[in-house]
């Protein structure tokens, strides 16, 4: 068992998320950086989709009530296991009674903590992810609070020290073309892809909200509701784009500037208010190649871990 001493800004139980229910208005939820989640799980020989703890910004503290092995992936929050500094990218053996403390992230926003065997909780609609807005899933149906407990299976055997490199960060996010180019005009599309955008403090797991110095993208279009998904880039009339993330709603009436390619969506996990990004339109072939490259990264990791065992 794990006891939450301090949840920090936002801490929740997530797996890959919920699919198959979007037509009923159910959001995906799930780890914003699904690659970090998978890497953490593979270092522990867990299933890829085992539930992990998503930590936002840091300033958090957890106490382990049993022996286990953990893997920490994501941004460096200057974590300590009792008094020993621990680093993202590695596994650590944890003894009953030990405490993990996270200071604050400097260069990113989220970290993922996996435990051997995964966080144990009931699946809701085939997923252990917490749907923060609707209030179900995870261990408690909401963000973790002080004194909450998370069930894990005790693990007392020896586990090798294993490490993994995470996929490289990019400053330019690659996106699929807009389906509303004609409506929005080429001018708006060009402006969007040429400007540097800043992440605003209103950003959260539902979406990253962006602004720039000049409000040149404002418009007066409203559309019949259409389906949207993580990666959809909405342009509300105020001209400030919203990149929908995992907790984003299933339908919306704003025109779309494009869709973030699947291989770059995980990058949003590490964006915090004040960070800046740019966008670049790419074709399907480029998007598929980028996805194949990430998949290869994971495949190489599995191969290396397999070799490490022998």
């Amino acid at each position, binding site marked *: 068992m794990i006891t939450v001493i301090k949840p920090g800004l936002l801490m929740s139980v997530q797996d890959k998320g919920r699919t198959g229910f979007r037509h009923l208005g159910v959001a995906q939820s799930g780890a914003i950086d699904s690659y970090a989640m998978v890497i953490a799980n593979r270092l522990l020989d867990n299933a890829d989709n085992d539930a992990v703890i998503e930590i936002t910004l840091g300033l958090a503290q957890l106490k382990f009530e049993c022996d286990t092995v953990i893997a920490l992936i994501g941004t460096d929050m200057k974590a300590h296991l009792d008094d020993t500094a621990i680093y993202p990218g590695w596994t650590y053996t944890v003894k009953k009674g030990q405490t993990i403390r996270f200071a604050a992230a400097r260069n990113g926003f989220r970290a993922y903590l996996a435990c051997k065997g995964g966080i144990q909780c009931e699946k809701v609609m085939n997923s252990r992810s917490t749907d923060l807005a609707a209030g179900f899933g995870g261990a408690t149906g909401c963000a973790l609070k002080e004194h909450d407990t998370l069930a894990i299976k005790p693990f007392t055997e020896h586990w090798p020290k294993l490490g993994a490199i995470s996929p490289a960060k990019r400053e330019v996010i690659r996106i699929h073309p807009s389906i509303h180019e004609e409506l929005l005009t080429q001018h708006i599309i060009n402006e969007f892809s040429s400007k540097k955008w800043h992440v605003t403090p209103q950003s959260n797991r539902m979406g990253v909200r962006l602004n720039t110095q000049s409000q040149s993208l404002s418009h007066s279009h409203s*559309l019949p509701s259409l*389906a949207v998904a993580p990666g959809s880039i909405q342009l509300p009339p105020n001209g400030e784009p919203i990149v929908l993330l995992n907790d984003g709603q299933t339908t919306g009436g704003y025109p779309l500037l494009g869709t973030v390619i699947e291989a770059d969506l995980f990058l949003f996990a590490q964006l915090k208010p004040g960070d800046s990004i740019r966008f670049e339109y790419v074709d399907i072939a480029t998007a598929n190649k980028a996805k194949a490259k990430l998949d290869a990264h994971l495949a190489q990791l599995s191969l290396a871990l397999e070799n490490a065992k022998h």
Partner: protein
Amino acid sequence: MDLKTTTSVVTLSSNSLFLDATHLSEDTLKIQKKIWALAAKCKASNAFIDVVPAMNSLCVYLHNSDELVRWQNELTNWWQDIDTMQHQGTHHKVITHYGGEHGPDLDFVAKAHNLTTHDVIQLHSNARYQVLFLGFQPGFVYLHGLTEQLHTPRRDNPRTKVPKGSVAIGANQTGIYPADSPGGWHIIGHTDFNLFDYLNNPPSVIQPGDTLSFVSVES
């Protein structure tokens, strides 16, 4: 207008396609019936992670992105062949307590239209509504069929908490809040009908393409 030639299926991403049937005809309900029929056919194919109808449009998310082009063609063909009458939904009766503590805005809506509260209840509960699609939050149904006589601009001050089960009117729409949430619609009644329960399978009793009527009961 010819429904067959003016619809396009476009790619949203490596694994998602969008069929846009807006602007095709004034008869949005007729188009929506085709959307429901197409959605059912897509579901039955098991090729998709999610099949999401919205207003006169359909979005599908593929399991296998290698099949993107094939499905783009397939959907275009299916759309041409599909029959509006292929879809048969379930009818739901939503027992509703109108007015009083259950519907604090019923008087306002009545006054806004120079009607009695009794008229509003009659107009609202006599209609048979079509469930166009779900969205906004789990179990929230977008309904078609609110009489123009009851179209009411949204509240100037949205409530920070609208109770679960509230039956409400906002602009040209009526709906039911499946969970406590902020909201700017006028609350005219309340129902105990459980729109969404994550422990049920399916979690939402009401599906896109179903029909619904409100049944007035004495409070």
